């Protein structure tokens, strides 16, 4: 069977790709577009390491088909920093040592940004439940939650 020709806006850039019907958006990002910042941890939507924004909505890209991206916008970890300017979340993850091995970090950053876009002043509990779809096995989440709180405070000008 022939491949599908898909056009989408990925990290703000018009992008074309060919994909099989069965290929997930995650596979397309990683294998066709060489955007390997989105990670595969489970392919069942349980770990959140492949989190991306699809038309501004947080999704597990392993649960979306590549063809479903047709005509839509996809934002991945590769588009989070503006050149050398890191997003405040990225900076606070670094300064707060909120990563150890780093494999879950792209997913957490995408998910945390989605939270702060809708809830600029989240409580600790709101952060913990919003991020409950992202697994981290290294940190015990302590420094991740703190980094998100610190970034949120900076972004709303509270510090």
């Amino acid at each position, binding site marked *: 069977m022939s491949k599908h020709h898909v056009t989408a806006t990925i990290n703000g850039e018009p992008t074309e790709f060919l994909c099989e019907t069965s290929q997930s958006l995650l596979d397309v990002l990683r294998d066709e577009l060489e955007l390997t910042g989105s990670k595969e941890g489970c392919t*069942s939507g349980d770990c959140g390491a492949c989190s991306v924004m699809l038309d501004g909505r947080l999704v597990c890209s392993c649960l979306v088909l590549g063809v479903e991206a047709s005509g839509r916008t996809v934002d991945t970890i590769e588009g989070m920093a503006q050149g050398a300017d890191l997003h405040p979340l990225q900076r606070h993850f670094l300064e707060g*040592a909120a990563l150890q091995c780093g494999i879950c970090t792209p997913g957490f950053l995408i998910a945390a940004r989605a939270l702060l876009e809708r809830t600029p002043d989240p409580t600790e509990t709101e952060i913990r439940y919003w991020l409950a779809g992202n697994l981290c*096995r290294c940190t015990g989440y302590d420094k991740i939650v703190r980094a998100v709180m610190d970034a949120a405070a900076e972004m709303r000008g509270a510090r």
Partner: protein
Amino acid sequence: MTAERKEFRWIGKRPVRPDGVDKVTGRAQFSADFNMPGQLIGKVLRSPHAHARIKSIDTSKAKALAGVKAVITGADFPSLPDEWVGAGRVEGNFKYFSENIIARDKVLYEGHTVAAVAAVSAAIAEEALSLIKVDYEVLPHVIDPVEAMAPDAPLLHEKMITRGMKTPPTKPSNVAKWAEFLMGDPVEGFKKADVIVERSYTTKAVHQGYIEPHAVAASTSADGQTVVWCSSQGQYQVRTWVSKIVGLPLSSIRVIPAEIGGGFGGKLIPYLEPLAVRMSRLTNRPVKITMSREDVFRATGPTSGAAMKIKVGATKDGKIVAAEGEFIFQAGAYPGSPFMNGLMCSFAPYAIPNVRTWGYDVVTNRPKAAAYRAPGSPIAAYAVESALDELAKKLNIHPVDLRLKNAIVEGTPSYFGPKFGSVGFVETLEALKKHPNYNIPLGPNQGRGFASGFWFNGGGESCATVNINDDGTASVIEGNPDIGGSRASMAIMAAEVLGIDYDKVRPIVGDTASLGFNHVTGGSRVTFATGMAVVRAAEDAVREMKERAAMLWDISPDAVTWEDGFARPAGDNAGKHEPLSLKQIAGQAAKTGGPICGHASLNAQAPGPGLGSHMVDVEVDPETGHVKILRYTASQDVGRAIHPSYVEGQMQGGVAQGIGWALNEEYIYDKNGRLENPGFLDYRMPVCSDLPFIDTIMIEKPVPSHPFGVRGVGEVPIVPPMAAVANAIHSAIGKRLTSLPMSPPKVRAAIDGDA
């Protein structure tokens, strides 16, 4: 010399890690992120049976499929002799390692590799797997280690005779090894006890749960030189295994370490690498293999489940006079559970005159156990630290005070080896008593639990090179994969010795061809042993720079000192020459003898053991049996915190894994010996909303053998949590749970009086 120095310029600071930006921008390359032009995709055929004889494998149809380039089975690998290498608790047997990577005459667990294919696409490789015909004779299986010890249990290895017994048994069994440690006379000791606690405990197999599945890319050129790209806890270990299991000289294999997405012991041993290398050699093309999460659960190492019996006796004043423990550990399909660690770590934190521990390494039809963070110690500590809590309550002594009365100190003899060196155990307990969480009032259905833990910590072989660049910066080459910020620690220590800014030091993790042998990233050894190598290499570079300065000044090298990145003339020459900075010396290197580099190669000895004490508050929902962690405090002797944030991170991460082990995680098998929960939905690891902030207390008691006093910190934090949570549950509901995980149904049953 530096261990006594109070003021450090970089040690104890919290700079951003050198590899950090790549990891928050998605640029860091982990195992599966690496692709090579012309690569084939490898797929693995796994056993659907828990135990079966392979009568035949027909690969002809798979080989004939267009696009298939290689199909391999166990017959494509050399048979290795049944011999044990290494000693005691760290011994291994490459015959078993090899057969675990690809089965020969029998499959011993569901998920055991039977064959592998390499094809031009994943879809063709998948199709080829379906064309391989394996004729199995299904055999009776055994999952539980106690059942596996029964005389009529199905035998995994039909000729296996128990090792380690004074009189070897005449009949084969599933008990691979027996071991015992004895000090004093426990029988006499128990006669002096006023109070004795005796109880049995069980734990289930749990997985390390790293988020990055195993993956590898291997490429072999026509001259037989192989490059392997993979994440692991030791590129040299991967090289050794590939060499032995595929049968190649070490010099023909170069292993390049990818970033590693978590390991916790589970990536100390390779699974896919020998398969990928074998197929790349058959095809002379790159071969990439990645595991699915299901494969990771079914075929890579969980740690053992266990059945244990503990007996402890104390006098009325709280002195423990005798202790005994029996430890049955399931090894999985091949010998090698961490049972000996359990025997040694169980009572290690306590000065007990009469101790006997003994145990069994039992094979079962499960994936072969792999190391998991302080392997063996958390399992044993769950039993022992629960028994001590019961003992404290019987004696009417606070559980922290009971531990204080019996805590090891420097010079206490151990029952398994030499006397303990520098240990800060007492300090960890006293710090808990001073912590604000110690006195927070508890509400209804809430309880507070305490437990402690021990881990040996490791040293071993490490080497490092420090290259001084002509712009005044330095490159550090070390050989241990950075699994949680160790590059930052190496850069901090190098900057401290060189006297230059942290930002001017760039550490990299070298491949197997760029640096001599380095032992694995494991055993909490890297910041200690590899850190020692980095410090010595930096000192070697400083020595060289002093000689270069002496040459420029035409004075004796002995008359040069090194301070804050400058060579200064000393003694009679003091003040006679302007100090020379590292940058100035490096800039003139060509005319003073060529490039400046320091190197060190060592086998680090006398690591300080790790000891930690934990305190947890829980709330039990009496209706559902759900246990909520309200607050958690971990206190630990960390030696010297080189980068305190990453030390705290080790403590918090270990605690979180321990809480998962305590409350939810377990391998569940059906009656056919098939794993029922090989995914993150049903194998329930803690998520963010399950946990509170985890408070840490870092006690710094420097280890004398390390120039900065470093003590391994990564493993001991997972040792106390299971018992601490069990003891807190007891404090909340008055019932003692003696079986992990303490999941809602078990807690409910305990409340209802069924347990």
